[in-house]
């Protein structure tokens, strides 16, 4: 009993052994990994080819006001996306920015959205 209490006290003071996945530790993919991608509204010509050809239907054309004008741009649902990068390879204007980030852990699936209006914590590169 005494032993048990001692162990309990010890464990209370100790730091957790598990890693807080997604907060403190992340998988470390190489630079060539197909990660989160997002459209660049400056380059997009609203042709909606990516939305038509997306194998999982993860891309939806959404109307936004950008630079004072109304414009339709693709918004990606990362919960459905399989990261095949078909949209990036077929884009006639190379309008997507890519990164090697894995999707972050979130509490709501609606937060997994590739909307260029929302600020994104990850860094992207142009294709």
């Amino acid at each position, binding site marked *: 009993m005494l032993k048990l209490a001692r162990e309990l006290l010890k464990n209370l003071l100790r730091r957790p052994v598990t890693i807080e996945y997604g907060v403190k530790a992340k998988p470390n*993919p190489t630079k*060539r*990994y197909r990660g989160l991608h997002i459209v660049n509204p400056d380059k997009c010509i609203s042709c909606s080819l990516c939305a038509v050809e997306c*194998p999982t239907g993860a891309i939806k054309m959404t109307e936004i006001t950008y630079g004072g004008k109304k414009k339709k741009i693709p918004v990606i649902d990362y919960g459905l996306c*399989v*990261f*095949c*990068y078909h949209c990036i390879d077929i884009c006639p204007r190379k309008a997507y920015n890519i990164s090697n980030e894995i999707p972050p852990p979130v509490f709501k699936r609606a937060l997994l959205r590739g909307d260029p209006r929302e600020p994104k914590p990850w860094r992207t590169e142009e294709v």
Partner: protein
Amino acid sequence: MPVIEIPVGPQHPALHEPILLRVRVRGEEVVGVDIVTGYNHRGIEWLAERNTWLKTLYIATRVCGICNLMHATCYVQALEKLNNIKLPERALALRTIAMELERLHSHMLLAAVMAEILGFESLFMLIMRDREKIMLLKELVTGNRVLSDYVWPGGVRRDIDDGIVEKIKRALDYIEKRILYYRDVYENDKLLRLRLEDIGVIKYNEALLYGLVGPTARASGVRIDVRKDTPYAWYDEVDFNMVTRKEGDCLARVLVRLEESLESIKIIRQAINKLPKGPIAALRIPPRTFRPGEAISRVEAPRGELIYHVVSRGGRTPYRVRIRTPSFTNILNSVFAYRDATLSDVPVILASFDPCISCMERIMVVDERTGEQRLEPIRKIVRKRR
């Protein structure tokens, strides 16, 4: 002594995949085995008929996780035959490199899983650690560790540069040493030999009679390999040997795969050394429609011969995509391999065929007399055949 039926599976009998073996035993001795499948049916061919040509490519990629690039390449080759697309040399070479990397990691996975089933967990850990290096190479070449999405009609989608070539060369030097060591372990370890040697023997004529393919057939001495028989991609440019063994037991099936991994390393080295320069795709973007007609394409997947039969009637969707996977023949037609085995050998024999359950869950029956077509569960057909 009465005969008892023991279900092995469907929750992960040997590999972590759903398949049920109904094993009838008299005491410890196996009298008969029924294979029951159908736990992983997803209707891939039905989906293929209802999606566009390019969406079907991503569905075909997801038939099987371990040999996904083989499925994609096989489907894409059929499409290229339909539209008569000539590929640039560099695209063919890159495809060959990526496919051999996939074969390499698949064969190492089997060697690892086999060690785990035999209770040799440290060997499992060691092989999986080294396999991770190949997964990294695959990520560098294709963009993902597992689901590569690398090929499309007309060529490949990503190029490699000198930095990646150097990395591949360095990693292959290390992997070659390790595979030689693991082959040595499998050949000389007494306990492994006791569990594997003379168990689940398939003779040469049996392998021919039941139409076994791939390393399973090659371990029984059958010289069958699509890469040699009808070279596709860049296999006619590279020099490699077809590995065969005569024993036909579980040990031979593991050793054939390990030796084939060495041949894969040889192929990748040659392809990298004489990697031609030029474009990586014949077209900038793949075509969206394909000419009417039909095409059959064959690829040597890690488990054996993989066949795609694509029928086109023009238009935006394929009329029919028939997939014939190697696991289908290898698992269902090898019931006789379990004779004279003991109960503890059953998972070992099953694992030695390197089953890929998700590959084999499709069938359509055509009644020749009436021309009637119907879908039937595989278990019914297996029962009829006996």
